[in-house]
C-alpha cells in the first residue's frame, strides 16, 4: 500500500484524532479525546486546547461574563508581510474559527468563588500578543483588582505579534503594569503555562504569577528552541525548556494535569484568598481524590 494512501486513511474527517505526541501517535475517538480535555487517553500528552473550552473547563457553567469583547484589532502599521496585508490575514483567521482574537477575558465563578480569568488561544495566530491580547489581559487584571478577586491567566503563545511591531512589544509593559497593581494590592494571581509559551508573553505576565503552574510537557522559554539552536549552532537536549525542566530549575511551582487544574487552582486560592465561609479542611484537600494519608499515623495512635 502506498504510504500516501495509508496516511489518508489514517485520518478520516473528524471521527478519529491522532495523538500529537510523536512518541505515542495513537488514534482515539475524537469525542473521547474531547471529553478528556484534549489529553491523550493513552500517553497523557496534553494537546492544544481552544480558549473557549478552557473557560468551560475552569469556570462554573454559565458564569462567564466577558470583558473587552468589543476591543478589535486595528492594523495601525499597515503591515504587509510580503504575501498579504495583516488586515487580510486577520479577516481570514477570524473567518476560519470562532475566536475573535487570541485571548478571551472576563469574570466568572470557579467552584462558586468569583474570579477574573484570561485565556490565550494558540489557535489564533499562534496566540500572539498584539494590542487586543494585551488590552484584554490588562482588563482582566483590572477586573480582578476592582472586585478584589483572584486573577487566573492561562498563557499559550508564540510571543509578541510581529505584525503590530513595537506596539505588541509595549503590551508587555501594559500587562505587567496591571499585574504590578494586583501585587501591590495583595490580590492573588495564578499563572498557568500551557504548551507552548515563549517570547513576549513568557517574558511578561505569564512569568509574574504569585503561584505558577505548568501543564505537563509544556514548552516554556524566552527564546524558542529554533532561535537558540541557530544562535549557538548545536541541537538542544531532549526535554530542554519543558515544564519538568523548568520545575527543576526553579521557575515553576507545580506541574498539574489539565483534568485536575481547576481543583488545584481552587486549593491554592484557598491559601492565598480564603473565603470567609469556606470550610478550611475541605478546600485544603480539594486537589486530592482521597483524604490526605499523612493524617493516618496520628489517627492509628489514637485507636
Amino acid at each position, binding site marked *: 500500500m502506498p504510504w500516501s494512501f495509508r496516511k489518508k486513511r489514517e485520518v478520516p474527517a473528524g471521527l478519529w484524532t491522532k495523538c500529537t505526541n510523536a512518541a505515542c501517535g495513537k488514534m482515539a475517538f475524537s469525542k473521547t479525546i474531547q471529553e478528556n480535555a484534549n489529553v491523550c487517553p493513552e500517553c497523557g500528552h496534553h494537546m492544544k486546547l481552544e480558549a473557549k473550552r478552557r473557560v468551560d473547563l475552569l469556570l462554573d457553567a454559565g458564569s462567564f461574563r466577558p470583558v473587552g469583547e468589543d476591543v478589535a484589532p486595528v492594523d495601525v502599521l*499597515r503591515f504587509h508581510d510580503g504575501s498579504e496585508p495583516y488586515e487580510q490575514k486577520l479577516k481570514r483567521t477570524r473567518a476560519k474559527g470562532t475566536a475573535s482574537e487570541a485571548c478571551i477575558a472576563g469574570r466568572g465563578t470557579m467552584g462558586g468563588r468569583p474570579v477574573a480569568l484570561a485565556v490565550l488561544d494558540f489557535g489564533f495566530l499562534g496566540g500572539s500578543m498584539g494590542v487586543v491580547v494585551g488590552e484584554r489581559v490588562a482588563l482582566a487584571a483590572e477586573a480582578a483588582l476592582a472586585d478584589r478577586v483572584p486573577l487566573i491567566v492561562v498563557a499559550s503563545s508564540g510571543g509578541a505579534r510581529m505584525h503590530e511591531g*513595537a506596539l505588541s512589544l*509595549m503590551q508587555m509593559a*501594559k500587562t*505587567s*503594569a496591571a499585574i504590578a497593581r494586583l501585587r*501591590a494590592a495583595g490580590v492573588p494571581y495564578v499563572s498557568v503555562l500551557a504548551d507552548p509559551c515563549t517570547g513576549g508573553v513568557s517574558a511578561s505576565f505569564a512569568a509574574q504569577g504569585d503561584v505558577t503552574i505548568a501543564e505537563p510537557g509544556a514548552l516554556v522559554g524566552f*527564546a524558542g528552541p529554533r532561535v537558540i539552536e541557530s544562535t*549557538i549552532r548545536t541541537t538542544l537536549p531532549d526535554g530542554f525548556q519543558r515544564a519538568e525542566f523548568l520545575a527543576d530549575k526553579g521557575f515553576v511551582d507545580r506541574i498539574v494535569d489539565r483534568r485536575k487544574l481547576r481543583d488545584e487552582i481552587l486549593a491554592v486560592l484557598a491559601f492565598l484568598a480564603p473565603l470567609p465561609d469556606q470550610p478550611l479542611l475541605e478546600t485544603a484537600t480539594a486537589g486530592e481524590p482521597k483524604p490526605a494519608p499523612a493524617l493516618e499515623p496520628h489517627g492509628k495512635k489514637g485507636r
Partner: protein
Amino acid sequence: MGEPVTLTNKTDLTTCLPFERPVFELERKLEELQALSDSASMNLNGELRPLLEKRDKMLVEIVGRLGPWERVQIARHPRRPQFRDYAMGDQGRPGMLDEWIELRGDRLFGDDKAISTGFARLGRHRFLLIGHRKGRDTKEKLACNFGCAHPEGYRKALQKMKLADRFGLPIVTLINTPGAYPGIGAEERGQAWAIAENILEMSALRVPTLCIVIGEGGSGGALGIGVGDRVLMLEHSYYSVISPEGCAAILWKSGEKAPEAARALRLTSEDLLRLKVVDEVVPEPLGGAHRDAATMVGTLKAAVVRHLDELTAMDADERLSLRYAKLRAFGNGLPPLDPPPEVPAPKAEKGDRKAEKAEKPSDRGDRPAK
C-alpha cells in the same frame, strides 16, 4: 579668508556604510586639497570652503533619503557612541557625567558585563545610571557578549533599581542591545522571568525613570530596562519587537528580506513617536551620531538634564499615575499610519552611485585650477 578650513568628523573607510561612500570620496579630495594647501603654503580656503559645504549638503540629502534599513545600519554603526562615550567618555572625549561610581553584581549569580550599573552625577542631579554595553574592540565585545545580556544582567539592574528606589535616586537607562541573549544558560537561569520581573517592577518604581534608546532597541532585551516615565530615542536608533533579520526569516522565509521587514516594522524614531511608543526624539548630528560623537554627547546631556529637572519637580504620586496611564494606553485608539515609503532601499543606493559618477568629472575639472 583668514581662518584655516579644517575637516572634522570624517568618514572612515573601514566603517563606511554603502550610502556614505560618496561622502567618503568627497572627503578624500578635500583632504588632498588641504594637504596641498598646507605644504605649498598656498591659501586654498576659497576652494575648500565650497567643497565642505557641498559635503554637508550631500549629507543632508543622503540622510533625508535613508530608508528604515539604512537607519538600522546607522544604529549599529561600529563607531556609534556607546554607553562609555556617554558615561565617563571614551577615546579622549569627555562623557556627560561629572561623577561615575560603578556598582557590580546581581547578588545571586554573577556580574554581567553586558549591562553596566552605577551611581552617576550630572551637575546637581545624582541618579542611578544603567546601560547596555556592546564593547568597542574584540576583547571587550566578547566580555560584553555584544550587548546581549543574560538574566544576571537584568537582575543586577533590578537589584540596583530597588536600591535607587529605597534611597530616592532617579534612574536613567541607556538602551543599546540587539536583544537579550538566547542561549542555554540564559534559559536555564530564567531569562523570561528576569525580564518579566524588571518590566513589572519598573512600572511601579516611585523614583523618576528616564529611558533612552541610544542605538539598538532589541525587543524584550531593551524593554527589560526600558519602562519609564519618559522614553527618548536618538534620531537614528531603532526600537523593534524583533530584529529585521529575524522578522524576515519568519514572515518572508528569508533573512535577505531584512530591508523589507525593517520597512514593515515601523522601527524608526519618527514612526515610534507617532505610535506614542517614545515621548521624544533626540536629534543627532548631521549624518548620524558616529560622525560627531562629541556633539551627540552634548545634545543628550542637555536632554537628560531637562527631563530630570522636569521629572524630579513632579509629585511622586502624580508621576506614578501618569506613568500607569501611559503604559496602559499603549496601542489604544491610534489612527493607522501612512503606508510605509514605497521606494525600496537598494534603489536609493544605486542613485547615490550614479550621483557619485556624475560628480567625478567636475571634481577633476576643478583640479587644474589649483
